[in-house]
């Protein structure tokens, strides 16, 4: 099972091991010696490819692992040799990069001794600032600056807080363990979360805050990227809502709000730019799905271009003729709709009438 883990080739755990030598001070002389090797190891970066790993590298990696176990751990600690042979098997026999082999070995011994991450003497030094979307590794120490999007009810006493965090790149679940005794996070607030550790379950990543993590409130706000879920529906359109058809948008690049009577809510009276859209309601008899057709999707489904729509409106001296025509042409029919769910809306990518 360990071997199935994707080997990413990242070398952050080298960094972790390297830093052991600076952050831990009360070791036996034997351990001090091993620290010397770790330092060298971090410079060689031998883990990028699964080429033959030297005995020296294996040995120092094994010592590094051994060093993480708490001093007071009962009895049966594996010998350095034992660990090294486990690493050797994975690296030289199964072509696993040393980094990954090391990670797997730590994970293995952690299971064997029933240890949690908190119990291991990781220095808790992080790979640094990352965005949520870039997280693609199990058990990676990172720093993130995020907004608390939602707090959920913890399902177990061991969990202090659980919910959803987000940044500009995406959203992830987070878990703050009770044992960590960290300050409370508030929904809607922004924090820098340092030394948090990632975990992966069935391809989904999440973030854990434990006793090595720190929380620092940050001023300001984060524009959290919306969750996107692709869907396909086979449904009738039961309504087109007002504000559909030929509309005018604020010409300000960063605004593009739809004008109401020639006014932008932000920029006041402006010379608007024409656009086409449909705000539709799909309904399968069980659930309601609001949908937006942008200009391209509107042109495709209605068989009308923006310029033709403008002409129609000019002829009638009224932009509402376009909306009326869309209602007559589209509502009441069944569609195969494909698009992304963003918040309450389905952003239509493609829609085709059945039958």
């Amino acid at each position, binding site marked *: 099972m360990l071997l199935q883990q994707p080997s990413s080739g990242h070398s952050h755990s080298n960094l972790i091991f390297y830093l052991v030598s600076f952050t831990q001070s009360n070791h036996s002389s034997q351990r001090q010696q091993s620290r010397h090797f770790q330092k060298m190891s971090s410079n060689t970066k031998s883990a990028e490819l699964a080429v033959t790993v030297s005995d020296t590298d294996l040995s120092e990696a094994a010592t590094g692992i051994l060093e993480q176990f708490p001093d007071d751990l009962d009895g049966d600690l594996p010998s350095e040799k034992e660990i090294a042979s486990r690493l050797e098997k994975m690296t030289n026999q199964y072509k696993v990069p040393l980094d990954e082999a090391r990670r797997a070995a730590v994970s293995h011994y952690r299971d064997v001794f029933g240890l949690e991450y908190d119990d291991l003497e990781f220095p808790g030094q992080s790979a640094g600032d990352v965005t949520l979307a870039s997280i693609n590794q199990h058990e990676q120490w990172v720093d993130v600056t995020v907004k608390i999007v939602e707090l959920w009810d913890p399902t177990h006493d061991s969990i202090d807080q659980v919910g959803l965090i987000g940044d500009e790149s995406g959203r992830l679940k987070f878990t703050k363990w009770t044992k960590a005794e960290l300050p409370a996070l508030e929904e809607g607030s922004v924090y820098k979360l340092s030394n948090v550790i990632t975990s992966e379950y069935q391809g989904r990543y999440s973030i854990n805050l434990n006793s090595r993590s720190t929380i620092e409130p940050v001023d300001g706000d984060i524009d959290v990227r919306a969750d996107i879920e692709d869907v396909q529906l086979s449904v009738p359109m039961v309504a087109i809502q007002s504000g559909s058809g030929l509309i005018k948008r604020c010409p300000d690049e960063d605004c593009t709000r739809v004008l109401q009577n020639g006014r932008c809510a932000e920029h006041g009276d402006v010379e608007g730019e024409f656009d086409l859209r449909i705000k539709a309601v799909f309904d399968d008899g069980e*659930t309601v799905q609001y949908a937006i057709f942008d200009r391209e999707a509107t042109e495709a489904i209605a068989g009308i271009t923006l310029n033709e729509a403008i002409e129609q409106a000019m002829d009638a001296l009224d932009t509402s003729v376009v909306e009326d025509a869309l209602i007559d042409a589209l509502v009441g*029919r069944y569609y195969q709709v494909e698009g992304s769910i963003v918040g309450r809306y389905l952003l239509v990518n493609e829609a085709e009438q059945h039958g």
Partner: protein
Amino acid sequence: MSESNSKSSSSSTDTENNDSGWHGRQVAKRAFAAEINDATHVFKQSDEERAPNFALLPSGEVANRYFLVGTITEVNDVGNEDEYLQARVVDPTGTMFVYAGQYQPQAAALLSSLEPPAYVAVTAKPSAFESDGETYVSLRPETTTRVDNETRDQWVSETIECTEARLDAFPDSDSEFAAMSREQYGDSLDLDNYREAVNDAREDLGMDMDHRSDRSNSETTTENQNDDVSVDEDGVTKEATVEEAEIAAAVANARFEE
């Protein structure tokens, strides 16, 4: 307010939402004329003036809105001064009455321009009115559009499924609306009527018959080509017993309700 809730928020038994909320829009239920016309118990769940009306379907659900597709066989102006259109919309199981006046300009424009028979899709709100001790159901359209026969057949087959699902669930259902149906419709509640309606609809589509209930009369429809004019006998009789002006007056009162 989690986004995962947004799709299920308008679940079939959720009548708490009003029309103004984020998740507020009520689902459009699918039912055949045979059942819509029997859904005469219309109620509000709250005292608020703007609280939505729900029609209690005999099969144990409520509908604030219907989506239906049928054949327009006749459109009459039943208004006094202002135009007030009454349209007969026929499905394989019966005839529904759709009323459109100045407050339903889109539907009124379409209905007055149609040459029956024609297939129409209607999104409509139900209400009920009494006349001569009988309760009648009328439908106030939100949107009415002219559609083709594929759309019509698709609606019939979808409505067969929805109706059967409700009928199948009813006997063991402990939902409040199944209980309400037993209480409100009491002795007159005969769900076999809707099994028959489903069979009529299946036959209309040329599908295999469902033999779970006996069909009492099998002469109503023959083949698809007759659909346009297969006016239900009950519908005709019912209409004949009601003064048209009376209907118009009753419905005119109802049309201001939400």
